[in-house]
């Protein structure tokens, strides 16, 4: 455009006037509902094949859909999303998904099996951060427009849970290709769609990415053609506020509707404020005691009867009172997983039985033991506070606990080498699938390397059950197997899980629908304003 100065000034003036008029019209026609979220942004990308962190998880959760998903608040089941149903072949290797009908991408094109194949092949071949998730895939096939088959290299019961990760977002193949994308084997070098997908989304989700200014803000607008229930907010603005202290200021001042990264003590301090709402729900960390099964290392703690006595001596209610909103797990299987035992099936304190078990093990007069733990506060929970309570609980059955806190890296060294006879640790699931629990049973890494609890120490039938748990893909069968394994672990285990502390978040009091999820953190499409 080659305008003379006077003309360009006039043009700008006219544009400005036009913009004001448009704004005035919009303003009077209907109120746009906008939510502003204060968040410590840590992403470098929104392209689903490149992004792998909490920020991209939260954004891609609403910009894209995956084939399957989890319920709103936990990973207790696998639910349909873009796939309405699926079958698993008898050998457990091939998953065949039937795609939902009537789903369109933001440009109006219908969802097809080709898009699924393209998206997953691209994820695998770009060799970016989340690509490892697609590594178990041997081949992909679009059987027809509405059916896609995925064949794995080996049986993998956790595959459906992994498919719920936003890395497996389905993108529109044609749009991505038109912007430099490719799913070819050399995509690591030849794919050039990341810049495009960082600025806009090519998905089927309730929102469309409108703009991203890294380290500044991310804006999403409602997808008018979304196949599911329309979300409440027209516009979502996620502003990057790296400091929790600033997030608190912005929340109290009303600059933001919700702050995602407040520390638990900040949340506690906001409790009781009229215009602030608080969310408490089970977090993803299970706190547990480890009792080494090697008598050389564990001493009396290696005795299964003593381990059982310890499990019955812990004052579970006390830990719940200590950490508001926390729950008692029924096993080392994280409480949000499918079939996991929660507070209803958890053990309860029974000092008489515990003392009887101590006597049966030959320790009627008790003994002294050293407890190792990391001297830190994790997700707002002070390990030292819990350690003192453990000390008091076990004193009731004659066990005198000497506390040995150390710097976390030092403590981890002993934990990972299996040289701690008695330790206090916490665990968050690597995969949101029951197989994660196998870590804590003989044959698993935590049980074997850290607690020296070996397969040969348990009976044949339980060994067989554990082996089946690693390969069974039928949902009902898995449920039955994992129930038996949890029952077993309540009786005989080198571990004593005792607390799942709460996640805490604060928001303006007029915001409703906040739910925390271990996979994507916050699902913005569930939020509304009173």
């Amino acid at each position: 455009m080659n305008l003379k100065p006077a003309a360009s000034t006039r043009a700008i003036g006219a544009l400005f006037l036009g913009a004001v008029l448009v704004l005035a019209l919009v303003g009077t026609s209907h109120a746009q509902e906008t939510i502003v979220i204060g968040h410590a942004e840590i992403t470098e990308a929104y392209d689903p094949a490149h992004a792998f962190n909490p920020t991209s998880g939260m954004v891609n959760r609403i910009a894209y859909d995956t084939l399957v998903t989890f319920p709103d608040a936990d990973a207790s089941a696998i639910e349909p999303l873009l796939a309405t149903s699926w079958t698993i072949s008898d050998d457990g290797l091939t998953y065949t998904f039937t795609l939902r009908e009537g789903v369109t991408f933001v440009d109006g094109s219908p969802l097809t099996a080709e898009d699924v194949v393209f998206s997953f092949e691209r994820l695998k071949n770009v060799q970016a951060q989340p690509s490892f998730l697609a590594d178990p895939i041997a081949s992909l096939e679009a059987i027809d427009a509405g059916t896609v088959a995925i064949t794995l290299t080996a049986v993998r019961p956790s595959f459906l849970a992994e498919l719920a990760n936003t890395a497996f977002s389905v993108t529109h193949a044609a749009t991505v290709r038109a912007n430099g994308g490719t799913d070819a084997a050399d995509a690591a070098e030849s794919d050039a769609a990341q810049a495009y997908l960082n600025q806009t989304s090519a998905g089927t989700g309730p929102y469309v990415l409108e703009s991203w200014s890294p380290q500044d803000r991310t804006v999403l607008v409602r997808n008018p053609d979304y196949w599911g229930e329309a979300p409440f907010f027209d516009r979502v603005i996620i502003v990057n506020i790296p400091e929790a202290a600033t997030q608190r200021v912005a929340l109290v001042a009303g600059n933001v509707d919700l702050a995602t990264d407040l520390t638990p003590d900040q949340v506690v301090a906001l409790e009781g404020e009229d215009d602030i709402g608080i969310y408490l729900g089970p977090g993803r960390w299970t706190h547990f005691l480890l009792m080494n099964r090697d008598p050389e290392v564990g001493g009396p703690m290696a005795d299964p009867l003593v381990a059982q006595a310890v499990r019955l001596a812990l004052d579970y209610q006390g830990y719940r009172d200590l950490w508001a909103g926390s729950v008692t797990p029924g096993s080392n299987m994280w409480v949000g997983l499918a079939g996991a035992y929660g507070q209803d099936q958890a053990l309860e304190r029974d000092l008489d039985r515990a003392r009887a078990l101590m006597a049966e093990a030959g320790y009627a007069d008790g003994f002294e033991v050293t407890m190792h733990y990391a001297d830190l506060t994790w997700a707002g929970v002070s390990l030292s506070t819990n350690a003192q309570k453990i000390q008091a609980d076990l004193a009731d059955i004659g066990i005198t606990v000497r506390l040995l806190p150390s710097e976390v890296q030092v403590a981890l060294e002993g934990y990972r080498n299996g040289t701690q006879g008695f330790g206090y640790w916490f665990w968050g699931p690597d995969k949101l699938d029951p197989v994660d629990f196998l870590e804590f049973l003989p044959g698993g890494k935590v049980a074997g390397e850290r607690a020296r609890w070996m397969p040969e120490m348990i009976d044949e039938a339980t060994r067989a059950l554990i082996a089946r748990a690693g390969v069974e893909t039928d949902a009902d069968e898995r449920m039955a197997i994992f129930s038996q394994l949890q029952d077993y672990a309540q009786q005989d285990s080198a571990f004593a899980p005792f607390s799942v502390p709460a996640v805490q978040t604060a928001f303006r009091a007029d915001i409703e629908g906040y739910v925390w999820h271990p996979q994507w953190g916050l699902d913005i499409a569930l939020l509304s304003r009173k």
Partner: protein
Amino acid sequence: MPLYQYIVRRVLFAIPLVLGITVVAFLIANAIPADPINANLPQSALNNERLVAAFREKWGLDQPLHVQYLTYLGNLLQGDMGVSIRTNQPVLDDIRQFLPATVELATTSILVGLLLGVSFGIVSAVWRNSPVDYLVRVLALIGVSFPVFLLALIGLSVLHAQLGWTAGPGRLGFLVSRPPHVTGLYTVDALLAGQWATLRDALWHLVLPSLVLGMYVSGIIARITRSSLLEVLSSDYIRTARAKGQREAFVILRHGLSNALIPVVTLLGVLYGNLLAGAVLTEAIFAWPGIGRYAYRASTSQDFPAIMGVSMLIAFIYVVANFIVDFLYFFIDPRIRYA
């Protein structure tokens, strides 16, 4: 010495300086006893040898150090700063994106600091050893020694959240849309686009952070101005000016200050460089998406191309700032012309 000769000499001085900086920055970045693989690949991918090897090859990490350095230098001479491991974007693009926010803040801060600092310095020197002098000196000491991030937090929670006197965090209100990108400086871009409301909002958001950073700058400048002015005011030519019956204000401002400001100008070059490079905490607290945050994130994830890029940028800024200072000397201090 003529002006052109002076300039050529300064530029020649800068070349070995910049080259030396590339070597030092490269060695320091590589001396960190940690593997960038750990910082840039998720745990589960680390077990996958194919992915790890591909990562090393892609970023040249499988090459010996001197080869890596020479490759970097060769590319740099062609204006190519490489691609950031983290953002997967050319480092130059990243810098273009994050630098304007910092420039905008550093510039307003240095102006605030200069204005406050020089005024305080004059007041303090003229009324030496009076209660005003003591007050200014205490304030200057607080400005220099009070942690800037703490001042920033107090400012935000009291002046913004409780009293509502200043704007909140960020470069613009969270609901305000960004002006069309021309320079990346929101004030300038809003002005160019004729978006007066946006301009006002951008200026409004600059007030508190500029005051906070300006407090620090003014503390240093006030002290230098005071001591320098005191020295000048006791010199012979000032006595002569007074003896000629010139008005005291004229003597102080025209004769005294213009000479007393020479060390302040020297300091400005360094201070401006400091503000551009070292406002990491302030940027974090004010949610200011600037180059300081970028540098911090680059170093915590051992993103070598980005670390090098930022180091080069900061070195370049110092060189340019000091070059300008030297250039100013040429005009304000006649002694240099005849040296």
